[in-house]
Structures are given as structure tokens and as C-alpha cells.
């Protein structure tokens, strides 16, 4: 996989999303629960706005001094017996991990959930080198068995129902149980235990690295990340270069924001901070530790007006409040990063060419900006993307250009404007029933396919006002 998923067009992906009734219902109920969880956790903590300010200041300070902190991190990891590889591209990162796998003669690699490894397509790279790769997060495992991309960055299999999951387990793993979530999860526990115990290498992502001590911190609930880092002899952690904080005190603040904003928990079941290799006398933990720091387009964002997009702590709060995501679901974005943050980040990381529609997948209501625990001005960045798409990239659609030209001509002549407001009611009357247009012609069709449009009033406001003034002066 890479950032881009699938080959369908934006319009087709959206249609698929809209037609998927189960997914839409699941997303809407999940959004409700995530949102309530976040709001009550924030309220219970108190001073949420101050917390957001602090989170934003920490992220800003870190990005402004990113070279310094990454240097410090690599020094600390080295001190603790680890190896650090700085990868400019996805290919460099994958080749390095492949090289380690070859050196270790690894057959089985077990992974905990990581968005950056999805982004660089690490699984495919390792499979090409002949390794068996097992995703161990329950949601990711389901998707891996079904060869399906994630649709949410926190609950990746949100679009699947229990019957689909049962079917996948039956077909791919010989499962014979019911579709009860507990029974499905118990089966996954039993199956994956064997993988944890027999894997040669454990691969993790990284929620936050801590520069001062060289720790890689993983925020999880299932316990799989602990398995992946306690049992295999080799641990490889892959991090986006911006996933770092200066100190433990900063870590504590961003973790407090992340767990609340993501799932409404005070802390998740496991916050695990792993530093280098196991120490002398320790029985479990890795003998060999590698940290791969990935750029893959991130540095192009640094020093630009979009820098704050790198502040993202991957909590999905913006996704959980987005009215567009609610209706079209994660796969419609055609990116492993969906929702508002996905619409901001994807064109920055992977270019406008394939993703020029994403900044338009927003109502610009600003709910995302309000929800963001580190105050990224998401909807403003979406507007800026739109400006760039039209003005710099000249990627606006032809129809839009013709329409805007026509509109400019029409609206700048008062006679034409007046005439059309006068005519609108009569002109649209063939499509009007009870003052509403249900199946509109031409450009109205896109709107009226899913909802009614109010018919233009018989009388324009200007003419009504004129008449009223006349009446008043006569009285």
C-alpha cells in the first residue's frame, strides 16, 4: 500500500461510500460515540482550552527545532545500543528494513498498528523479500486477511460488520464460531499468540519518540504492541520524522491530549515507552533495536504555511466530527489518511495531481479546527489548498472555469441579474412541486439527487422591498 489507495475516481469512490448503508450507519454511530467520549473526557479534565494551547505550543516548538531534537534522539538511541536510519524516501526506509530482515534470516515478522508503515508500503516490501508479515492489531489483522485498506486512523476496520468479519475468519483461518465480537476477538487472541511467540522480528510505528532519552512511545489498548516488543529478538520501529517530543514532560501532555481526543480515555490500557535494547540481566525484550526515521515528503511541508499540519498527533478527532466523512466514509478519500487531516496532508505528501479533489471534501464548517487538540487550523488550510489548486496549479475543472467566467459576466451587469431573478421562478416551474424542486435540471441535478431544493420565490426581495416602501409612503 502507499498513501493512495485504489484506482477509482473521486466521484466513484464517493458513490460507493454513499451506497454502503452499513458503513454509513456505522460511521455515524461511531462519530457520535467518539465525540461524546472526547467532550466528556475534556470536561472532566477541565481547562481543555489551556491544554490545547499547551499542546499546540509543544508541537510548534518541536517543529521549529526539529533538526536539533532528531539529532538528540539519535544520539540517545545509539547510547542505548540501538541503530538509527534516516530515510528520505519510502524506498530507502523499506530497503533498510528488508536488509535487516535478510541479515536476521527472518521468516516471520509481527507488526503492531502503524500508519507510517502503511504509507510507505512496508508490508508489501517485506513480502516481496519472502517474509510472512502478520498485522496484530485486531482491526488491522481483519483488514490484512481481507486485503482491504483502513478507513479510519484509530479504528481501521470501522467499515466492516461482524458478519463480514466472521466470514473472513471462516474463509482465511478456518474459524467455526459465531459472529459475537467477544468470540471473534478470542479467536484472534489464540491465533496471534502463536505468531507473537514465533516471530523473528517485531515492527512497530511510533506515537511519540522522546528526544531526551531516546524512548519510542506506543499508545495502545490491546497489548499487541507490548507483545511485538517483548517477545521477538529484533525490534524495528518506524516513525514519521515529526513524531517526536523534546522531553518526558512534553510526552505526558501530548499523550493526555491524544487519549482523550481519540477515544475519551484518560490513558489507554498501555502506554509503553521503549528505549534501545534490553539491558544486561533482562530476560525479555529485543537484543537488537533499529529506529527508522522517515521523511517521505514531510520536510517539504516544514517552513511553509502548512507547517502546522505536521503538528498532528493522529487522534482522528477531526475525522470524528466531520460531516463529510460521516456521509462518505474513509475509503472515499482514496488515501490512508482520511477526513480533514487527510484532506490537508495527502496533497502535501503525495502531490495535488491525484488528490486535488480532497480539499473540496469539506463543508468548511470548521468543526475539525475546533476539535483538534493541538489547534491545527484545518479548515483554513483546506481553503488555502483550494486557492493553490485554482491559482497556482490551474487544476480547477473546465466546467467550473466556464461557469465562473459566465457568472462574472452575468453578475456584473445589473440588467441581466435583475432579469434572471425575475425569470427564475417561471423558468424552473416545470420542475417545481409545492414550492420545492425534487429533480432539478443541469447543475441543480447534483443537489436534488439527494435532497430537495426550494423553488425561487415568485417575487425577488428587491422588488418586494420596493413595493413595500411604495406602500408605506402612500399610507
Amino acid at each position, binding site marked *: 500500500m502507499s498513501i493512495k489507495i485504489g484506482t477509482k475516481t473521486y466521484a466513484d469512490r464517493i458513490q460507493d461510500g454513499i451506497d454502503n448503508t452499513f458503513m454509513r450507519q456505522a460511521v455515524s454511530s461511531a462519530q457520535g460515540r467518539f465525540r461524546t467520549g472526547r467532550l466528556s473526557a475534556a470536561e472532566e479534565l477541565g481547562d481543555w482550552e489551556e491544554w490545547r494551547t*499547551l499542546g499546540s505550543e509543544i508541537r510548534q*516548538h518541536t517543529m521549529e527545532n526539529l533538526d536539533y531534537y532528531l539529532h538528540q534522539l539519535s544520539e540517545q538511541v545509539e547510547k542505548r545500543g540501538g541503530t538509527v536510519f534516516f530515510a528520505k524516501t519510502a524506498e530507502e526506509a523499506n530497503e*533498510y528494513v528488508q536488509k535487516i530482515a535478510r541479515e536476521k534470516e527472518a521468516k516471520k515478522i509481527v507488526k503492531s498498528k502503524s500508519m507510517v508503515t502503511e504509507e510507505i508500503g512496508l508490508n508489501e516490501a517485506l513480502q516481496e523479500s519472502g517474509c510472512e508479515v502478520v498485522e496484530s492489531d485486531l482491526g488491522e489483522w481483519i483488514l490484512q486477511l481481507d486485503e482491504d485498506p483502513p478507513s479510519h486512523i484509530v479504528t481501521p476496520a470501522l467499515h466492516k460488520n461482524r458478519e463480514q468479519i466472521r466470514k473472513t475468519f471462516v474463509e482465511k483461518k478456518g474459524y467455526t464460531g459465531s459472529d459475537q465480537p467477544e468470540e471473534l476477538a478470542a479467536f484472534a*487472541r489464540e491465533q496471534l499468540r502463536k505468531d507473537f511467540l514465533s516471530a523473528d522480528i517485531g515492527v512497530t510505528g511510533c506515537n511519540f519518540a522522546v528526544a*531526551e*532519552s531516546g524512548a519510542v512511545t506506543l499508545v495502545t489498548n490491546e497489548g499487541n504492541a507490548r507483545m511485538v516488543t517483548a517477545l521477538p529478538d529484533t525490534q524495528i520501529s518506524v516513525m514519521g520524522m515529526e513524531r517526536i517530543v523534546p522531553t518526558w514532560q512534553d510526552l*505526558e501532555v501530548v499523550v493526555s491530549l491524544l487519549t482523550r481526543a481519540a477515544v475519551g480515555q484518560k490513558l489507554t490500557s498501555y502506554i509503553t515507552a521503549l528505549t534501545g535494547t534490553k*539491558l544486561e540481566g533482562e530476560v525479555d*525484550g529485543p537484543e537488537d533495536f533499529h529506529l527508522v526515521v522517515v521523511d517521505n515528503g514531510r520536510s517539504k511541508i516544514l517552513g511553509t504555511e502548512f507547517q502546522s499540519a505536521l503538528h498532528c498527533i493522529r487522534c482522528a478527532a477531526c475525522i470524528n466530527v466531520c460531516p463529510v466523512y460521516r456521509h462518505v466514509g474513509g475509503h472515499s478519500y482514496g488515501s490512508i489518511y482520511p477526513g480533514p487531516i487527510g484532506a490537508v496532508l495527502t496533497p502535501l505528501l503525495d502531490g495535488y495531481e491525484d488528490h486535488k479533489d480532497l480539499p473540496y471534501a469539506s463543508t468548511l464548517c470548521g468543526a475539525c479546527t475546533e476539535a483538534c487538540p493541538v489547534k491545527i487550523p484545518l479548515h483554513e488550510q483546506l481553503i488555502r489548498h483550494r486557492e493553490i489548486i485554482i491559482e497556482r496549479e490551474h487544476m480547477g475543472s473546465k466546467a467550473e472555469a466556464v461557469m465562473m467566467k459566465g457568472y462574472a459576466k452575468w453578475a456584473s451587469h445589473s440588467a441581466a441579474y435583475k432579469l434572471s431573478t425575475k425569470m427564475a421562478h417561471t423558468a424552473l416551474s416545470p420542475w417545481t412541486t409545492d414550492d420545492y424542486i425534487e429533480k432539478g435540471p443541469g447543475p441543480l441535478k447534483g443537489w436534488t439527487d439527494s435532497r430537495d431544493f426550494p423553488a425561487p420565490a415568485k417575487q425577488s426581495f428587491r422588488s418586494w422591498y420596493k413595493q413595500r416602501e411604495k406602500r408605506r409612503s402612500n399610507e
Partner: protein
Amino acid sequence: MTIHHRESFLEGLADQLGRPRKTTVEPPAYSVKPQERVLAGASPDELVDVLEKQCEFIHTSFEKATVETLPQTIRAILNGNDVTRVVAAGGPRNQVSGMDQFYDQLRTEGLEVLVWDEQQGREQVTFAEKAGAGIVFSDLTLAESGTVTLFNDRYNGRSISLLPETFIAIIPKSTLVPRMTQAARLIHSQEAKGNPVSSCVSFVTGPSNSADIEMNLIVGVHGPVKAAYIVVGDL
């Protein structure tokens, strides 16, 4: 060589930021510190109450004990879960708390008890995988979130709190602090003094869980299925 391609990578970042590479950075003065007000000034007893309340939300049973009653409290949990194999953290705290004698007693009753010992090697992981319960001492306990902090080391293997079905944490009352803020501060000050942090700091909050299937909360996924905290008043 253990650090690859660093210089060109970091030079590129500095270029993007429009300035030369930074070799020192002043610690920033952030404008607000809301984390320091949470449960500020709470007494140890109040922190115990906060922890007890939080246990209701994290699917964790909560008990209070003294050094004298600790063995019977643990025994009740083991019996309640039909545990016949126990893996426990080693180290000097087992003597102070009387756990050493208790484990001997359990052995005479026919239970298999493994006290973690660096000399014994990887077979202990295999044992832990088959054990019904893992018993550890909390190093720092975060009242707000109901979190047991484990500085995993030669005495406290990572597997003990991870592989068995039931996770039992002995919580000396003296280890209670308001929240993660205090744990982070301690680790930060130790780092500054040149005492490097444990290779694995595990902040454990209740049993493992997942909401990956239709957003249903499932307690007990890869890690422990059950969790029990015992606060020991005189430790």
C-alpha cells in the same frame, strides 16, 4: 556505524526551516501549565479514593490490604480465577512485603510459582505464557487514570504483566501520585542526573481491550483479560 544518513537529512530540515543547523536549544517557557493543577494537594487517602473510583471505569477489581492481609487478598483472587500457575516479579520487595514466604506457602499447596530470576533465562517466558496470573509491584501509581507504572527490568520481566490471563498489581500506597505529570517529572529528573530510564516503561491501565469490531468494547484481547489492584496501606 549505528547512525545512518543523519547529517544530510538534518541539513535538509534546517534548509527548509531557512536557518543553519541548531546545536543548542533553550528549553521553552510554555505559556500555561494546566497539568500541574490536576489533583494538586490531594492527600494520599484522597488519591486512593480517586484510584478506587477510576477502577470502576477500567474494568479492574480494587482491594485494600495491609502487609499482614496481602497474602489472603491475593489468594482470594487466585482462587476466584482457578489459577494454578503464578509468575511473579522478583527483587527485594518480596522480602519486605512477605511475599517470599507466601509464594513458598503456595508451592507447598501444590501451585506452581515462578519468581522472575535473571539467571533462569527465556524458559520463564514460556512459563509466563502458561501461567494463570502474573503478580507485580507498581513502581508509581497514577491515581487519575488508574495506571500502574512498571519500570521493567531484571526483576520485573515484561512478560509477567503481559502474558498471563489475570494481571495482579500490588500497589504500595506510598507509590501513589496524582497523574502522569509526576511520573514524567521523575523520569526527566533522573535522565538529567544521568540515570537512564528503564528499557521498557509500561504504563498499564487495567486489562487489555479493543473496540475494533463494530465499536463493541471487548475486554481481554492480546494482553490480560482480567486485572486486580491491591493497595497496601503500610508499604
